[in-house]
């Protein structure tokens, strides 16, 4: 049977049928898989938070090793004692903090609206550790992560991730050699919250100097590095009221 594929009517019919078929395939797939995808995303977030507070399976020479997916939920419940939400400078205990989308809240904060900023308080080696989410901009797209500090504002660990930074350059912010440099650095410079700057003139490749509020930049990834610096600064600005209370405790 030959079909005249040049007729307008046929062309329109074909387009309509194709759109319906493709649309239903994708819709069916998306709704069928959405639960599993959400679960994966939850595990990933738990892994990232735990990683930032130094709960991971890294060995001295390994790459980034998270707590495995199958045990991460239990580990998260065990390690994260309380979740708080910071609203208008006031801290309230709130078990839904985990589900908050930080990107939206930071945007609201910038616009001068009320923002609900999540805080995760965990425990490691008998010490309370405070994990704060971060969200910022790299060279191509979003970068985000978590940073954890103790009472003295000394960084216990960080985790960075990115959407589309350049492979081999900016994408290296999620590599251990970069993230490990932050551990032990202080967010305070004297009394001000100066954060940690990713610096090209640090001249400290092994990162021995933990008092300088600087870590070594990645060559060729200037803008991603600046993005990380300002992301940390923005986070500090947003969370300052809370950080003040834990320092004075």
């Amino acid at each position: 049977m030959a079909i005249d594929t040049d007729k307008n009517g046929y062309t329109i019919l074909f387009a309509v049928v194709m759109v319906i078929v493709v649309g239903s395939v994708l819709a069916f797939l998306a709704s069928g898989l959405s639960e599993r995808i959400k679960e994966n995303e939850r595990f990933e977030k738990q892994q990232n938070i735990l990683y930032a507070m130094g709960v991971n399976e890294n060995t001295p020479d390994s790459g980034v090793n998270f707590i495995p997916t199958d045990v991460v939920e239990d580990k998260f419940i065990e390690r994260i004692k309380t979740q708080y939400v910071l609203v208008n400078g006031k801290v309230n205990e709130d078990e839904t903090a985990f589900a908050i989308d930080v990107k939206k809240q930071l945007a609201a904060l910038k616009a001068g609206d009320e923002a609900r900023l999540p805080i995760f308080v965990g425990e490691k080696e008998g010490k309370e550790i405070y994990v704060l989410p971060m969200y910022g901009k790299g060279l191509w797209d979003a970068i985000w992560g978590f940073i954890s500090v103790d009472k003295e504002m000394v960084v216990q660990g960080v985790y960075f991730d990115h959407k589309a930074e350049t492979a081999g350059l900016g994408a290296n912010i999620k590599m251990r050699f970069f993230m490990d440099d932050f551990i032990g650095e202080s967010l305070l410079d004297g009394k001000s919250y100066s954060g940690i700057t990713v610096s090209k003139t640090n001249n400290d490749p092994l990162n021995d100097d933990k008092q300088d509020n600087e870590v070594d930049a990645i060559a060729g990834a200037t803008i991603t590095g600046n993005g990380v610096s300002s992301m940390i600064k923005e986070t500090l600005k947003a969370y300052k009221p809370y950080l003040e209370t834990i320092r004075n405790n």
Partner: protein
Amino acid sequence: MALLSKKDTNLILDPLADNNPITIQVLGICSALAITAELKASLVMAVSVIFVMGVGNVVISLMRNIIPSKIRIIAQLIVVATLVIVVDQVLKAYQYELSKTLSVFVGLIITNCIIMGRFEAFALGNGVWRSFLDGIGNALGYGVILIIIGFFRELLGSGTLFGIQVLGDPIAKTGLYAIGYENNGFMIIPPAALIVVGIIIWVQRSRNPALVEEN
């Protein structure tokens, strides 16, 4: 009877060398620049494109008699986009780690002109089996070049392969770095890929003068 006739074998082998989509037809250069700073990314991209092109060519070939010629390009685009999104979603559900590596490439695969080119030039006019072979062949030709570029760029630019330091440690100054060797930062930025592609084209044409165009 052989599994592949001589003509069929050529469908796979030609794009690997004498009719390579990157070095001869100069297609798909954009993604060849964008993702070859690391060998791992090159490999992931190569495998993804092999899959999308193999399946895509089959789908288009099956539909070749019912696609209206007026909207064939859109129809082809929808097929590639759907395939890529299906793969991405399934990976997100069942291979989450891998999907995170891959998600960056999704857009690059959809717009890869080699894929659209083969749909248009081959799958629309040929049978299913031959279209499948043509798709695999061209994707392999693309992948081979990607991996060669990725190999040199990562080795010379970062001193690593698949993220493993093969030339010593640049910070602790061991291996080659102990005698004054330095990584070439230029290799990591995209223009370096053009130079590597240029060298590959040069080597290929000097080995096979038949490829050189007469002026």
